[in-house]
């Protein structure tokens, strides 16, 4: 699903160039659930942006679904994002003047689906995350956990192959965090590849694979203990 070969990325900060990614190699198979960990400044957000076709990389090769992703026009990038990738953000990033249903329907709007049809689909996805009753509510009337569930429904509606989640639990307390993780897990069980950027150990332990970044390089790539235990118990 995802193949990264020797990805380099640096940012220009005035006269200084900041080398953030110094050669990242890994691949993710369809249906995996991977967490990307690292302290701040380790390059994990940059990596996620490259994976999400939100940012370019300087060197190397990124293949998504066997297509090389490099120097795309903004329009093409937008279409690819719409087709392949669902985003979940730390700060939810719901559109404040749209209600839950309309927020969920947004990716379909950009796909050109009719309003009636996309709102119907949006309701199905809201039901999936248990928020059907909140369809008509505006984002500012919902709790953090609810907002994140709306955001997850939105990321799913266009039938993406990959969900990219940037600190999806960063703004939530632990109970709601686990709820959100449960939803992400169930999504993964349906066969969608899930990549989660996090710095929380307990969150990463709920995924099937952990990639640890340090100073722009992969420090470790392992199956977390909880999963091992889980595997051994089985």
């Amino acid at each position, binding site marked *: 699903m995802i193949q990264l070969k020797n990805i380099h990325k640096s940012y220009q900060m005035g006269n200084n160039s900041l080398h953030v990614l110094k050669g990242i190699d890994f691949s993710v198979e369809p249906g995996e659930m991977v967490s990307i960990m690292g302290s701040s400044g380790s390059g994990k957000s940059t990596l996620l*942006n490259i994976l*999400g076709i*939100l*940012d370019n990389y300087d060197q190397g090769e990124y293949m998504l679904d066997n297509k090389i992703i490099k120097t795309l026009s*903004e*329009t093409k990038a*937008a*279409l690819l*994002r*719409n*087709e392949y990738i669902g*985003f979940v*953000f730390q*700060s939810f*990033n719901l*559109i*404040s*003047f*749209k209600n839950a249903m*309309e927020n969920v329907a*947004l*990716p379909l*709007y*950009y*796909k050109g689906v009719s*309003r009636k049809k996309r709102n119907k689909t949006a309701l199905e996805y809201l039901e999936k995350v248990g928020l059907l009753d909140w369809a008509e509510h505006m984002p500012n009337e919902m709790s953090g956990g609810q907002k994140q569930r709306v955001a997850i429904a*939105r990321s799913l509606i*266009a039938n993406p192959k990959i969900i990219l989640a940037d600190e999806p639990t960063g703004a939530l307390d632990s109970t709601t965090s686990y709820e959100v993780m449960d939803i992400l897990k169930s999504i993964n069980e349906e066969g969608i590849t899930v990549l989660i950027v996090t710095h929380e150990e307990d969150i990463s332990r709920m995924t099937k694979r952990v990639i640890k970044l340090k100073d722009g390089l992969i420090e470790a790539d392992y199956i977390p203990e909880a999963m091992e235990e889980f595997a051994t118990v089985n």
Partner: protein
Amino acid sequence: MFDLDKWQEIFAALRKNKMRTFLTAFGVFWGIFMLIIMLGSGKGLQNAVFDGMKDFATNSIFLMTSPTSEPYAGFPRGRRYNFRNDDIEALRNAIPEIDLIAPRMQARGGSSATDNVVRGIKTGAFTVNGDYPEWNMIDPVKMVNGRFLNHLDILHKRKVAVIGNLVQEILFEEDEEPLGQYIRINGVYFQVIGVFTPLNSNISFGGDKAQNIFIPFTTLQQTYNYGDVVGWFAITAKPDVSASVIDAKARDLLKRRHRVAPHDEQAIQGWNMEEEFNKVSGLFMGIEVLVWIVGIGTLLAGVIGISNIMLIVVKERTKEIGIQRALGATPRKIISQIITESVFLTTLAGYLGLSFAVFLLEIISRALSASGTEDMAFKNPEVDFNIAVTALLILIVSGALAGLMPAQRAVKIKPIDALRDE
């Protein structure tokens, strides 16, 4: 195609900062309002002035004699001479571009002199013109009773008179029928055959037109002993010929016939109505150009205001735009969104300004016509439909231009930077 989500976003954006939206829109509102009011007022002035020259043949010239200023052909300078009846035929034969010739003559007496017209015990001082029927096609009057002079009157030198409505008021009782009655002009009786009212008030030869009397030109010459002297000529050019052409030709011919030095500019006086008319038209053209310059300037200030606000709106919505792009919104979608918003705001504000200005002009127009006076310096202020449509088009285009720069700014922001923007 109506796109509900697009409009939802526009209204959300406009509602979010009502005061700012209002003030921004007001700039455009005021711009178009001023433009329309100024154009309408200019038109009002123009209507008043042109109304005063209504129906007057604008392609006409007027020629009269004056003492010569150069000695020529044995004559000294300062010689007085007159146009003659045979000049009429000569002009017509030599200058094919001439349409109408109306030789004219004014009888002695008139507005400034003692009473020259008598009927029974009523008397009055009126301007008495000897005219051809053609005169009524050059400076027409409106016949309210009877008829104007005709060619038989000229041929038979009939003693008939066409009188202005004020002449009737002074010489006749209110319930009296003037037609067929006789009035005495400078001691000679004339039968009244028609009563007229003036059509235009700004052009007048010899006092108030309503106090004029027209009698046949030939009758006047014979009755008052003028021989074959012509007082002055009114001549019009054929429709596709400039009055200046016949002006030059007629002056040349008349100078030759009356042995006036070819370069004597003094000997023939007169004026070219076309030139005068063009001067007035030019004046109003100038006013209109000025109005457009000022109006467009004001409008531009308003549009720049919109552009400015749209830049701020884009800045405020950077994150939102980032989200939309992450979710798959193409740059085109974003540009179209922002330009639509800008066009919408501009057009709405402009349309309100337009309607309000037209409404105000209509009220002024109604008030003016209700007051009912004839001679006004201001008449019928109005904007024609084309100008309104042009203004609206200018608005839509300028709204799109106002949105263009902010839209491009919005697209230039990389989705990643937009998302980071907190």
